[in-house]
């Protein structure tokens, strides 16, 4: 039998005004197991806490019930109080007689009656409480960042600055991501490469950062603080340690007709290539789909010209396994395919381009050397039509995305402005549904495009693009002007919606991190925990969590790093002790609990049990990893044999509360 002390708080007049505290403490004193019951003006005050501690010692209490404000206010306080007096903190229960009683009832009799019942329920529960000890698990002091775009680079740099080693896994031959392909950045119009490439170099030179380029995450095991990750280092057929990045091989390779993905296929590269001049690491990679040597065994030009002897046609993929304490997803985004939107004639004319392609066409390192020329005939375009919201804000069918891609309004204003600035002889039309410019200096930027650069902003949509005789006949609505417009354009630029990278979905499965219906990672709380995944130890950086521009991405990347640093700076993690546990004698090994667990905290093991007549029975039973379990209790209800229970909220405890309330 427990020895329970009951402490009824007046909370000044907050409780005492509508609850007869004396009556409550008197009534609860008669409850079985209660050896002490009192009331006091402010239980949370130092004097109140001292009283609790003294009573615990004097009466040898094994359980404490505090009838006071909500447990969300002072549960932690009273737990600490009791712990100091030598009582297990989980032997404390709070009866919420303020928020859920005194404050909502005017009649003192009613309030008193209810407070007594709530007190009884808490006493009934505490009878069944058991001391709980929070487990500890060690933390591997290394972080993994998946994705080497600006988000991943920033997160890695910030973690490395705090003194923790970080690995960046990037699937492409170089880090840098989408930002390397962007020409200028809004709203300042500074050159993207000028601000990004120094960061890439910083990442490469930071001794705490290890860049695993041309690599992919193969599998993830473990839990917060203790992840084991297998990484596939794809064969690049070039020894990274030997290659000096001189680029001679990329000039001599006879296979010249490989679409250059860095320029989105607007020009060609060789079969052995360095994606761009500032690539990090600056080493060559052989594309096995195009290399004549790898395909037919005849060629070997690159090997002959390489003075460093770095070419290795026999290289194989390599699997490496590493331990991490925290994982950051920074897998980024891609523009969606324009296949389903051929009313804009994207497949029919090379002069209809996506905005990212337009970035390359404007970029000094792009296929045209920064001179805006039509891909079809290399002539200078005079009339340009920009179409916004292509595939964004659709109603969720197969075609398009239901969300706003967020960045298009601003980059389109940027494109329009840059075009007009560089080529004052052009006519630039922007078709918009809404111009969305929330952000510092964003609306001012858009207004400049209209007022100073004379960009024609037209509220309406383009309905059809017809390529004919070297022109693009654009049919569009001008809703404010009340007319249908027919524009003979030279180029049409589509602001394609952005979507999470395709690698995010399988990665989320590996991480047991949740995703929304659009394959963006879900955050632990949409407002208050925006950079954490609900899965402990997994953090989110950049556009993999939702559409973002560069400043937002960098801010979030830094925030994710701060969270990672907070985790890695601990030697041990204290786990929530209110976790599920399975009674192995009752478990029938059905896997029902494993299937509902959102955290992958439940595994099954084969275990030997003593059977009758000195036999041994091997049975499959559930095991809960207390470091991973978050204590939601989904498994306890799924368990058909009643083997699974939740500490701190056990079946027996909740039933006891039900009984006390219904009595």
């Amino acid at each position, binding site marked *: 039998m427990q020895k329970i002390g009951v402490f009824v708080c007046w909370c000044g007049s907050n409780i005492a005004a509508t609850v007869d505290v004396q009556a409550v403490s008197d009534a609860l004193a008669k409850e079985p197991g209660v050896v002490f019951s009192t009331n006091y003006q402010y239980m949370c005050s130092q004097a109140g806490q001292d009283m609790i501690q003294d009573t615990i010692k004097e009466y040898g209490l094994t359980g404490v019930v505090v009838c006071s404000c909500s447990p969300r206010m002072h549960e932690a306080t009273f737990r600490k109080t009791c712990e100091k007096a030598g009582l297990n903190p989980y032997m404390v229960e709070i009866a919420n007689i303020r928020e859920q009683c005194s*404050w909502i009832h005017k009649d003192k009799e009613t309030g008193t009656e209810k407070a007594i019942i709530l007190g009884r329920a808490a006493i009934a529960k505490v009878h069944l409480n058991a001391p709980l000890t929070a487990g500890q698990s060690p933390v591997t002091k290394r972080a993994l960042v998946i994705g080497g775009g600006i988000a991943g680079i920033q997160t890695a740099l910030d973690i490395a600055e705090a003194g923790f080693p970080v690995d960046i896994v990037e699937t492409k031959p170089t880090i840098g991501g989408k930002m390397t392909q962007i020409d200028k950045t809004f709203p300042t119009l500074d050159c993207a490469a000028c601000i990004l490439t120094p960061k890439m170099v910083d990442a490469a030179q930071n001794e705490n950062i290890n860049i695993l380029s041309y690599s992919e995450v193969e599998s993830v095991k473990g839990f917060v603080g203790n992840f084991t990750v297998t990484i596939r280092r794809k064969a690049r057929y070039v020894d990274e340690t030997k290659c000096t990045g001189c680029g001679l091989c990329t000039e001599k390779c006879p296979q010249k007709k490989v679409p250059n993905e860095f320029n989105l296929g607007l020009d060609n590269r060789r079969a052995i290539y360095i994606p761009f001049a500032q690539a990090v690491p600056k080493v060559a990679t052989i594309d096995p789909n195009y290399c004549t040597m790898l395909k037919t065994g005849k060629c070997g030009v690159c090997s002959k010209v390489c003075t460093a002897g770095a070419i290795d046609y026999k290289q194989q993929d390599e699997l490496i396994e590493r331990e991490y304490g925290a994982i950051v997803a920074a897998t980024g985004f891609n523009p969606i395919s324009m296949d389903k939107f051929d009313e804009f004639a994207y497949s029919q004319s090379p002069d209809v381009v996506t905005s990212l392609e337009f970035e390359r066409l404007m970029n000094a390192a792009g296929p045209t050397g920064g001179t805006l020329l039509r891909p079809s005939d290399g002539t200078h375009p005079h009339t340009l039509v920009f179409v916004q919201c292509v595939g964004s804000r659709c109603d969720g069918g197969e075609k398009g995305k239901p969300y706003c891609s967020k960045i298009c309004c601003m980059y389109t204003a940027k494109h329009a402005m840059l075009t007009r600035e560089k080529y004052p002889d052009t006519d630039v039309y922007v078709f918009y549904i809404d111009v969305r410019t929330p952000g510092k200096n964003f609306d001012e930027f858009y207004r400049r495009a209209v007022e100073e650069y004379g960009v024609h902003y037209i509220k309406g949509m383009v309905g059809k693009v017809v390529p004919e005789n070297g022109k693009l006949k654009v049919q569009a609505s001008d809703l404010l002007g009340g007319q249908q417009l027919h524009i003979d354009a030279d180029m049409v630029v589509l602001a394609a919606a952005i979507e999470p990278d395709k690698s995010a979905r399988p990665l989320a499965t590996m991480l047991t991190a949740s995703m929304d219906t659009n394959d963006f990672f879900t955050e632990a709380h949409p407002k208050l925990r925006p950079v954490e995944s609900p899965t402990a130890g997994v953090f989110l950086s950049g556009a993999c969590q939702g559409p973002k521009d560069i400043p937002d991405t960098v801010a979030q990347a830094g925030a994710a790093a701060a969270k990672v640093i907070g985790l890695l700076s601990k030697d041990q993690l204290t786990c929530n002790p209110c976790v599920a546990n399975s009674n192995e004698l009752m478990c029938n090994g059905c896997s029902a609990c494993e299937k509902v667990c959102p955290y992958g905290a439940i595994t099954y093991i084969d275990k030997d049990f003593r059977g009758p007549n000195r036999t041994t029975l091997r049975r499959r039973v559930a095991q809960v990893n207390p470091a991973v379990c978050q204590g939601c209790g989904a498994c306890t209800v799924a368990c058909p044999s009643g083997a699974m229970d*939740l500490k701190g909220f056990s079946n027996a405890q909740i039933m006891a509360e*039900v009984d006390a309330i219904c*009595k």
Partner: protein
Amino acid sequence: MQVNQEFKPTIVAFCCNWCSYAGADLSGTNRLQYPANVKIIRIPCSCRLNPMFILRAFQRGADGVILCGCHPGDCHYTTGNYYARRRMTLLFSMLDFLGIERERTRVEWVSAAEGAKFAATMNEFVETVTKLGENKRLEDLRCKS
């Protein structure tokens, strides 16, 4: 003798720790009244609610049981309230079978910001159950001599 003894139903409310319990606290903070018949039991997540608890409540004389959880999609544990919703759907059909009026059991999504909704829901639920009158007590016949 029974003139003043108007029927006061016993109502058990299960509230998830993250949204609805906080919503209930908020309705207290805002001094929004609802009847004292409602007694709240805190559970970590709506998915912790074993349908057995509801049957137990009806067995012990509850006249109504309400489960409150985070709005779909907002669950602290990501998917818990979806499990709860499905389990409750099954339980409803069992309660139908047992002959307990559908209106005595309810699921509501109340966020931590919806103090007013919590109070309104409770007022309405108590009213509904009061109209239905006393529940017939589920009994375990094995326990009877």
